[in-house]
């Protein structure tokens, strides 16, 4: 290989390398700034080609006490723990108890709930486990 070609190749490699680095630096998404207690539910959404549902606790607790959903409607204290699907909702269970066009807007407004970024995992935003700088061991003492 002539030294000129080698020089050109080296330059090319260096430049592509720096280009990739620049793309990574520019393309890194900023950390989410959503509200404390925002819930993302993505049990079935991604697989069904739908945006995951986002439940803002702050919005609902201004209007209802915890008891309404967590005692009367049977919502578990666990993100994604109720395995809610649209059938349950149109039958008046879970979200459907209010989101029926009577107390709150009805189910045909898909995009109002299914408003999460595709691929966002089920989570409680800013929960203690998310805030831990070092994730806890997987084999945690899981006693309620």
């Amino acid at each position: 290989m002539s030294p000129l070609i080698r020089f050109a190749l080296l330059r090319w490699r260096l430049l592509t390398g720096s280009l990739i680095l620049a793309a990574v630096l520019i393309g890194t998404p900023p950390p989410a700034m959503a509200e404390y207690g925002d819930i993302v539910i993505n049990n079935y959404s991604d697989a069904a080609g739908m945006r995951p549902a986002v439940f803002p606790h702050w919005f609902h607790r201004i209007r209802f006490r915890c008891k309404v959903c967590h005692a009367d409607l049977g919502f578990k204290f666990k993100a994604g723990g109720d395995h809610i699907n649209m059938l349950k909702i149109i039958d008046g269970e879970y979200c459907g108890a209010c989101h029926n066009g009577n107390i709150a807007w009805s189910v045909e407004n898909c995009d109002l709930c299914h408003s999460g970024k595709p691929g966002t995992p089920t989570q409680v935003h800013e929960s203690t486990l998310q805030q831990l700088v070092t994730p806890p061991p997987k084999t945690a003492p899981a006693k309620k």
Partner: protein
Amino acid sequence: MKNLSNTLRYILVSSLLAACAVTQAPTTAKAASQATAPATAKAKVKAKAKVKVKAKAKAKAKAATHVRSAIAGSAANPFNRLLKPQGKRHLPPAEDGIHDPTDPAIHTLQSPRQAFKGLPPDNAGNQVDWVKALDEGKIKPRYDRNNPKAKPIVMDLNIVREVKGSMPNVVYPHKPHTQWLDCSNCHPAIFIPKKGANQISMAAILLGKKCGVCHGKVAFPVSECRRCHSQNKKIKAKKVAQP
């Protein structure tokens, strides 16, 4: 040889242009129109070369500024990279990072900043003191979803839990809890309603058990130690050895 390095350069320039597609789009359009304008083939080649050099310089400068701004504005070296920046709280859903900004209904959703206006401030969580807001009547959340006049069954009973070491004892007030919740939310699944029957540790709470079922998810987070550990102990002073 020159041809090869020129081709490489051309590929580089075009890829750089592609990388900065959004900002560079007008330049490429300009370059195209400039390149096609001259009538003779010679002039064409000359113009092309000129544009190439110009575009390359521009693209280089652009890439450099991009990298610089990326470092300045990225998570690389802010004051504290593990904390939420002060000005970036209560963002509207379109900018909060978990909502999809391309969702057609995104601007219909309320912004927390708007909702929290006038509510008593707090240092953690939503930056809103929800219990105070309820006590002051700033919010009137329903106790029954159909009946706006339903009144909660409030129980005013404090439970004191003695804890290890110098850590102040925990005083658990039933009052604010029963204002929001029903007895069945906690008893008996999370807490057995019997003195001494519940083993609670901070490790369990951090992992979302016991108090951590709500505190650290929606109720004030565990960073607010003194709100629970509120009863100071009398700590015996250690005897200092006399020389």
